């Protein structure tokens, strides 16, 4: 039997018993709790509903502005009650309870629906009441506007009237003047008829009258007529034609009719002024009455007094009729009537709403009572249930606990023994195996229980460790071999690079030597030909002195040329020899840095000449004791790099090679070009082996790597490279002037 099962047995038996008791207890407890919970929920629902009812009453009583909060509260409460009833379903035990809950829920839903309808109607009513207030306000506003217009109009009327009255009195003056003049003229005519001659006094009076009339006419701005009058009066005084009488007649006709028109206008304006003011008063009255009516109605509506509101309706109708009958300003009459009629229409709707509200309230009260009864009933039922379940639980708990304790103890003792014995055996085997891993297998491999599993696992562990160790060793050997090969390959490559640079050197040398040698050869050929010609001349016996002299001159000239060119070639060979030797030898020697540098640069001339690049050298006379081969390789590689990578094809550049002493025993060599520079992303990798941007052009990518190695390993110096795209590259090498044991550590420290 497996250990697990044994333990299971030990633990299991009492647990099973306890579980059985717990299950029974739990079931009963759950039932009890459900019943109790149900009772609590039912009680809560009842309370919430009672509260909702109060809130509803608050809603009904509240002012329009505060209703929203009550409505919200009510809906929240009924929502809560609804949730409560839904929750109650979870506590249900009998179909009868379910039915009860469903009926309570139905009642609640109806209640809420009624309330929603009620809220809707109330909102409508509130809106209508508000709108009625607005309409009444609008009436006041209209009346106010009419009043303001009327005030302006009154001022204007006064102006118009006084102007008209002025014109009237001026016309009256004119008319009086005419009459005066006519009377005098008539007297004069009478006198003339009597005595054929008018007394001078009367003529003077006529003149006076005419002057007065002319003045009156001028005062009215009628200069033309005044002029006519004066002409006519003068003629009349001289006893001429009766033109004046006719003229006066005409004027009288025009002005008397004008006076009548003015009279009429004044009268009409006065009538209008009075009417307008009365109208305005009436308009104000209507507006004020409407406002009051609106307020009273609103009060009635707030009191929910439908009959009173209905009475207002009749009053509104009278008001509307009054507004229609009064000569109110047409500008606002239509609006006033509309306002009153609209108000009445709203009021009718509002009263309807009010009635509906009252009905709804009664209906809701009925529903609320039914719900409350349901909720209380549910509460009672659930409490009864809970109490029954509580009693059962207590009994079951007592019996179960005693039985479980006894059986559990016995089983536990038996099982403990069966486990400890094989465990001790395994422990011994393991200790033996640790002392001698090859010592064989642990015992108990064939056991079927957990102890057998442990033995098999230990065995597997030991063999697996041995296998891994062997594999690791093999891998290490392979890696070592690869490293050796790699080093060999690198050395080969570096040698190849060196040979390549040597080849380059030889090519340079060949080129440089070619020129003096070529010249020497040509000169020699000329001398040979000259000698042949001279020999022929000599053989023919025609040698003249002049010819001899010329030959000697020619040979002399040739010899001089030969000497010069061959000496030059010898010089070159000597210089290159040293360079070449340096290249291949790895020895350290003492040499003058400036001349050495000249020779080296001379060997590089062909390379530079190809692109037309210039080299500017700055070097103080210095003697160094170092490895010239390594140094030459460094300079060559740097210059080659500048030529190959630094300069754009077809654009001649300048390379500055400058040497300076950088402190005690330290030489600084700088090789700077003004080429394209190196992109920053490549800068970091510039000393990496095989890194090149020109592999397609045969570049190996070892040049700078070798430079780095030579500087650090052979010259005991350090190297730094700075470059900015477009501004060129500068390689700075610092190395000790003499490689001695004393400086090395210091320098290494600096480099480090």
């Amino acid at each position, binding site marked *: 039997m497996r250990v697990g099962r044994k333990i299971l047995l030990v633990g299991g038996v009492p647990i099973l018993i306890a579980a059985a008791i717990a299950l029974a207890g739990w079931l009963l407890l759950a039932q009890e709790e459900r019943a109790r919970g149900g009772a609590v929920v039912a009680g809560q629902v009842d309370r919430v509903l009672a509260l909702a009812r109060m809130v509803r009453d608050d809603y009904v009583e509240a002012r329009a502005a505060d209703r929203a909060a009550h409505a919200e509260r009510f809906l929240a409460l009924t929502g809560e009650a609804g949730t409560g009833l839904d929750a109650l379903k979870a506590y249900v035990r009998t179909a009868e309870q379910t039915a009860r809950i469903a009926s309570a829920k139905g009642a609640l839903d109806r209640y809420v629906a009624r309330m929603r309808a009620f809220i809707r109607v109330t909102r409508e009513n509130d809106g209508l009441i508000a*709108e009625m207030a607005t309409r009444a306000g609008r009436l006041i506003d209209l009346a106010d506007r009419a009043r303001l217009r009327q005030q302006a109009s009154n001022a*204007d009327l006064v102006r118009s009237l006084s102007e008209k009255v002025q014109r009237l009195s001026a016309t009256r003056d004119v008319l009086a003047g005419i009459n005066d003049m006519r009377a005098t003229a008539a007297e004069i005519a009478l006198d003339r008829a009597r005595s054929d001659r008018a007394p001078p006094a009367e003529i003077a009076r006529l003149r006076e009258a005419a002057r007065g009339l002319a003045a009156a006419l001028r005062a009215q701005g009628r200069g033309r007529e005044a002029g006519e009058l004066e002409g006519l009066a003068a003629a009349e005084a001289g006893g001429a034609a009766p033109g004046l009488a006719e003229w006066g007649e005409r004027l009288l006709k025009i002005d008397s009719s004008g006076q009548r028109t003015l009279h009429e206008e004044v009268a009409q304006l006065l009538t*209008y002024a009075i009417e307008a003011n009365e109208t305005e008063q009436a308009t104000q009255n209507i507006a004020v009455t409407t406002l009051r009516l609106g307020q009273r109605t609103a009060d009635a509506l707030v009191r929910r007094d439908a009959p009173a509101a209905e009475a207002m309706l009749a009053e509104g109708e009278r008001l509307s009729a009054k507004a229609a009958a009064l000569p109110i300003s047409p500008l606002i009459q239509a609006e006033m009537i509309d306002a009153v009629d609209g108000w009445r229409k709203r009021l009718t709707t509002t009263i309807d709403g009010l009635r509906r509200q009252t009905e709804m309230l009664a209906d809701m009260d009925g529903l609320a009572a039914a719900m409350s009864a349901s909720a209380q009933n549910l509460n009672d039922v659930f409490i009864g249930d809970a109490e029954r379940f509580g009693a059962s639980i207590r009994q079951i708990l007592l019996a179960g606990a005693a039985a479980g304790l006894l059986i559990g103890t016995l089983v536990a003792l038996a099982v403990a023994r069966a486990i400890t014995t094989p465990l001790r055996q395994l422990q011994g085997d393991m200790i033996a195996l640790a002392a001698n891993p090859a010592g064989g297998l642990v015992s108990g491999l064939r056991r079927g229980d957990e102890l057998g599993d442990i033995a098999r696992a230990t065995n597997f562990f030991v063999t697996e460790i041995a296998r891994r160790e062997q594999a690791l060793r093999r891998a290490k050997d392979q890696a070592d071999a690869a490293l050796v090969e790699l080093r060999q390959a690198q050395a080969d490559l570096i040698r190849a690079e060196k040979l390549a640079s040597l080849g380059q050197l030889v090519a340079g040398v060949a080129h440089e030597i070619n020129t003096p040698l070529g010249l020497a050869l040509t000169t020699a050929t000329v001398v040979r030909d000259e000698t042949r010609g001279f020999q022929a001349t000599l053989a023919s016996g025609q040698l003249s002195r002049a010819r001899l002299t010329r030959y000697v001159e020619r040979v002399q000239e040739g010899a001089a040329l030969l000497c010069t060119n061959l000496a030059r070639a010898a010089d070159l060979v000597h210089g290159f020899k040293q360079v070449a030797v340096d290249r291949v030898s790895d020895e350290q020697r003492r040499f003058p840095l400036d001349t050495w540098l000249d020779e080296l640069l001379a060997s590089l001339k062909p390379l530079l000449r190809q692109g037309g690049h210039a080299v500017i050298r700055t070097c103080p006379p210095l003697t160094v004791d170092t490895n010239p081969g390594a140094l030459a390789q460094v300079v060559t590689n740097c210059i080659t790099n500048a030529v190959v990578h630094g300069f754009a094809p077809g654009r001649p550049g300048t390379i500055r090679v400058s040497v300076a002493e950088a402190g005690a025993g330290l030489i600084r060599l700088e090789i700077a070009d003004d080429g394209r520079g190196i992109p920053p992303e490549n800068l970091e990798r510039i000393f990496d082996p095989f890194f090149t941007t020109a592999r397609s052009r045969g570049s190996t990518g070892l040049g700078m790597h070798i430079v780095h190695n030579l500087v650090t390993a052979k010259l005991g110096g350090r190297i730094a490279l700075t470059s900015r795209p477009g501004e060129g590259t500068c390689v700075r090498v610092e190395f000790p002037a003499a490689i001695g044991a004393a400086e090395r550590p210091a320098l290494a420290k600096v480099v480090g």
Partner: protein
Amino acid sequence: MMGYRGQAARARRLRRFPALLGLSAVLAGLPGPAPAKTLVFCSEGNPESLDPAIVTTTTAMNVTWQMFNTLVEFAPGSTVIRPALAQSWSVSEDGRSYAFTLREGVRFHENARFRPSRALNADDVLFTFLRQWKPDHPFHGQGAPDGQGSQNGKAGGFAYFHDLGLADLIEAIDAPDPRTVRFRLKEPDATFLPNLAQAFASIHSAEYAATLAASGAKEALGREPIGTGPFTFAGYRPDVTVRYRAFEAYWRRPDAAEPGLAPIDGLVFSITPNPAVRLAKLKAGECHVMAFPATTDLDRIEADPDLTLAGKAELNVSYLALNTAKPPFDDVRVRRAVNLAIDRRAIVEGAYGAAGLVARGPLPPGLWATDAGLPEIAFDRAEAQRLLAEAGHREGFETDLWYPPVSRPYNPDGRRVADMIQADLARIGIRARLVTEPWSAYRAALYAGVPQTMLYGWTGDNGDPDNFLNVLLGCKAAAPGGANLARWCDPEYDALIQAARRTAAMPIRKALYAQGQAIVLREAPWAPLAHTVVHMALRRGVTGFRMDPLGRHLFEGVALRD
């Protein structure tokens, strides 16, 4: 219309509910119904009727123009004919057949009695014309102001239709389909189309008439008019107002007077006979447009920055009609004497001012047929007295002189003109008694032929000389109830005028009319007095109002700036 607006407002309110709650403190500030824009026109007098088939004064025509449309119409501000309820028409070769194609979807107004079930169709056009034409038509009885047509017989009703001779001109009217109406004339008539553009030809709703007949309220046709026009009738209180509301389903979208400016919602004719009071109201802002300011006020109106003065030389004439049916004016010598005794210059100077022009004949100077060669009518008292003596009135005689109680476009101050004529006549021994009546009654008396002498005038309705010379002086209009107030019928003259009417050739017509004018001056049924430049004063905020040479005050498309 109101129903629609009411619903819309309710819908708005419903959407506002959430906002309404808790806002009672600021209820007064709530946006109520938008303030209505009402345009008030201070008109000069009461309309004699609201039925365009009956009216003959421009005052009443202007009341009906707001509510009605005709088949064809004069473009506002001109005498150019354009389509209206008829969207097109054709005239036969012989000039005797007219076929009109009606516009589709034209709605009639509605009122408490009536809600139209259909759009305009040929039945309405037939009803409009048959009613005026056929004495046995059920609605022929509603042919006089206040429904008294039956008392006056045929001539009493539809004066305009008859004065134009249409009753005799039309041979047949029929409707081959609901959108086509055909008129067949007995003879070609150059004035037929312009005549159809006049107020009397405004199209009524046959359906409304049928509704009224069914409920026994035929007289409501003229009292609670239903038309297709831009404004619906909202109420008429004599001496106070005629009220209208904008018709939302009006068939023509008005050209916006100014972009973004809403058209007016309401229109009110505030009836104000006295020009000084009209001006006072205009200045106070109680009205926005006023008719016929007094000539003495023109300068002041022009100087007022709040007001605009609009003026237009109208095709009109102001005259003193002498009733040739009543002695002593049946004697041409007496009529000539009256003509000679009147000092027209003094009248124009005193009563018309700068707006007036002394009349030389019956036609206004702006009309193409006016005889430009006519001399000014002489002012010669001695000759007048001689003629009176010759006629046996050496001691003069007594007569009545009727003058209009309200401002007319052709006569701004009837009383003053009458005063001056009275003074002139007194000088030759004619003792004139001044008489007047309220405007509608005045007009009715004149059309009934009651006065001996009367001041009246005419504004051309269609820009055609026939509208003056035939309508005002032709024999057909001389019957009682007709517009020939002098009751003068001269067969020679009438023949000329009728001949001119039958031809379309302008030179021939012009020659015929010149002869006719000479006869009028010779026979002197009138003492022509003056022609006028008609003025209207407007408040600055009024836009889109156009003066009309035919004296119409059209408020379609007029708007108010704030």
